[in-house]
């Protein structure tokens, strides 16, 4: 039964519930105490010791139900089985004086089990074979075939085939029955493997998918991937928040401020009753984001804005601007609306134009230049394709001079910079950093670096 529990822990990990060794020890202890007798109590116990949040409880509950509902052994083989045996009764009686149900002794173990329809024995053999084939190692759906054949091998399919050949010659009725039972067995094994895949493979499959997604170009996502990408971006945001929101607090208190302390305690003749401390000043990032939302860059901007605006704990102040033909401020839209609504509103206001970098920078200079202070990091996201209009790099220079850092994120590959109407080389002269940023991974890196610069 301990084996069983260990396999359940693996299944739980597959379902996305993190089970640490310490927790599994606790669960073992607890289960040893309540016993296996009552399923409801066992379920409650495992939920109490392993799951640490409401979602995990849900996932683990489902996993438990799936795990402890092993597929039934060949039920559907039975009806035609009995029909067959009715028909083949007389012939069997002649051959086998031992009576109905007792299979001929010269058959292999598996054939005997199938012929006598010993459901418990089959289930036990199947469990043993699954263990021998280390079925719980299954990770990807491509491995289904190989695991099925491994299990069948362990069950002794070779011997069964020989038996079947022999029987077809000597006793066609029994052979037919055996063939039907074999078919049912195969189906059963497939089912067991499928279930194992659901139980143990989920995590790996998800990891694989996330890995692919992280490196997929944001601009060319399929519709169904967009949802998954949003979840991934949220996970990235959470990771960044966790990494950057904590240490800042701890480092705030510095050394004793002697002068200030003496001054404060002058009333007591310089006896330091009240102490004052030097505080290390750490600015939280102030960010001004200027995003191109035209054409192929739009999707990257979407995800970037989504990410930046979910970093409230880490970032003090974000002002976002979107432009294609002209530039508007979109901070309020992003803060008050759900991501989908916000994006569609932004797109309807400024999207779908050909981008005019010079004009948009001019808009920015006119209305919003005051938002750039020496503490601000300005992030420009765009492909710098100006459609051969005036790039107004001089405005970018002013921005660069006024700000702490100017970061340019370009979704295009470095190869393309400077080709055609790309003004990247001219702009990049004024940027502190220029990065390529076309996948979620690069996006995370870029934002992480920006936030880290303030730590």
């Amino acid at each position, binding site marked *: 039964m301990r084996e069983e529990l260990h396999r359940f822990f693996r299944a739980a990990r597959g379902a996305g519930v993190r089970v640490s060794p310490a927790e599994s020890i606790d669960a073992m202890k607890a289960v040893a*105490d309540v016993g296996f007798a009552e399923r409801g109590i066992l379920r409650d116990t495992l939920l109490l010791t392993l799951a640490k949040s409401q979602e995990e409880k849900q996932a683990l509950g489902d996993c438990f139900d799936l795990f402890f509902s092993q597929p039934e052994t060949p039920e559907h083989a039975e009806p035609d089985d009995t029909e067959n045996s009715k028909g083949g009764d007389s012939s069997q009686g002649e051959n086998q004086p031992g009576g109905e149900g007792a299979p001929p002794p010269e058959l292999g173990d598996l054939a005997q089990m199938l012929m006598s329809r010993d459901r418990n024995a089959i289930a036990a053999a199947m469990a043993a074979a699954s263990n021998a084939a280390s079925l719980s190692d299954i990770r990807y759906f491509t491995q289904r075939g190989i695991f099925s054949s491994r299990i069948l091998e362990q069950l002794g399919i070779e011997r069964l085939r020989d038996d079947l050949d022999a029987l077809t010659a000597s006793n066609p009725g029994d052979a037919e029955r055996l063939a039907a039972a074999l078919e049912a067995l195969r189906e059963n094994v497939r089912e067991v493997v499928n279930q194992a895949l659901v139980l143990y493979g989920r995590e790996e499959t998800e990891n694989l998918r996330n890995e692919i997604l992280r490196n997929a170009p944001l601009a060319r996502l399929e519709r169904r991937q967009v949802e998954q990408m949003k979840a991934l971006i949220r996970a990235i945001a959470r990771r960044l928040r966790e990494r950057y929101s904590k240490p800042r607090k701890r480092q705030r208190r510095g050394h004793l401020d002697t002068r200030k302390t003496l001054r404060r305690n002058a009333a007591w003749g310089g006896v330091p009753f009240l102490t004052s401390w030097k505080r290390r000043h750490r600015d939280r990032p102030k960010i001004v984001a200027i995003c191109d939302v035209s054409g192929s860059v739009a999707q990257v901007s979407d995800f970037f804005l989504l990410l930046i605006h979910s970093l409230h704990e880490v970032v003090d102040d974000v002002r976002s601007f979107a432009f294609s033909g002209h530039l508007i401020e979109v901070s309020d839209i992003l803060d008050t609306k759900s991501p989908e609504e916000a994006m569609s509103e932004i797109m309807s206001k400024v999207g779908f134009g050909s981008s005019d970098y010079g004009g948009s920078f001019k808009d920015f200079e006119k209305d919003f230049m005051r938002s750039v202070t020496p503490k601000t990091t300005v992030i420009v996201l765009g492909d710098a394709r100006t459609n051969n209009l005036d790039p107004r790099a001089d405005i970018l220079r002013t921005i660069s001079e006024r700000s702490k850092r100017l970061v340019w994120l370009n979704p295009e590959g470095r190869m393309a910079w400077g080709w055609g109407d790309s003004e990247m080389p001219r702009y990049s002269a004024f940027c502190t950093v220029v990065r390529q940023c076309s996948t979620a991974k690069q996006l995370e890196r870029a934002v992480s670096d920006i936030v880290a610069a303030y730590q």
Partner: protein
Amino acid sequence: MNTHLPAHSIEAVTRGLASAGYIASKQIATAVYLAERIEKPILVEGPAGVGKTELAKALAAWRGLKMIRMQCYEGLDEAKALYEWKYAKQLLYTQILKDKLGEVLGGADTLAAALGKLHDFGDVFFSKEFVEPRPLLQALEQANGCVLLVDEIDKSDAEFESLLLEILSDYQVSIPELGTVTAIVKPTVILTSNGERDLSDALKRRCLHLHIGFPEQKLEERIVESRVPGISATLRKQIVGFINQVRALDLKKLPSVSETIDWARVLVLLQSSELDHETVKDTLNVLLKYEADIETTIPQVSSFVAKAGRQGVFG
């Protein structure tokens, strides 16, 4: 002395809590049973007013133990949670020491000898007498054990959680000047959280995680029965039926068990034997705490009352 043996079965826990006036669901009873068996704290999460705090009180009442409660809030630190030095007494002590210094050092000729004598003299400046125990330390010092309730842990700062870890896993506290204080009898620890922020994994790992949601209708009826004596069976059924329908609405704050109990008490006070449209409308403010919620509910009251009434007849 009260011998504190863990209950021998889950049913015994259910009965015990019931004797203290707490009707526990199976999950709750299992959690309490396991907590005593494998000596782990319970972290209780759930919406406000479903009886998280009440569980600790009931447990203490049933076990006949002292309950030590620590209410968490932002800015709670170890001086308020663990221990503090009695500064005034320490100052006084140094004063006395100064006066008696001559006697202590009596007749030492050289500085080295005087220092030697001073070292031999027991140092009590940092000693047990000068420690002011705060709730967490108090809980460890109870000779009979106790129930320690750390209420609304999600209100405290993240740093405070780390402070709790030592207590939760080893039932001990380290005081740098004194050493480690270990629990005489391991207290039963219950932490509650409203889920205002996510707790750290380290904390969660050390606890059994129990989520108390709104109880099922049958269970809630039994809770009302135990908490509001003298309420008629029909009214009880109707009240619970009505509230369950209200919980299906989109409200800012759903009425929880404590509101059910309050409302039942109010209705008993008003001597109503059945739920009717007018009384419900007049007493809705006991149930719902926001003006907007009341406005949402009022149009539905008649149909809810009718439905609840039918349940009362057939249920």
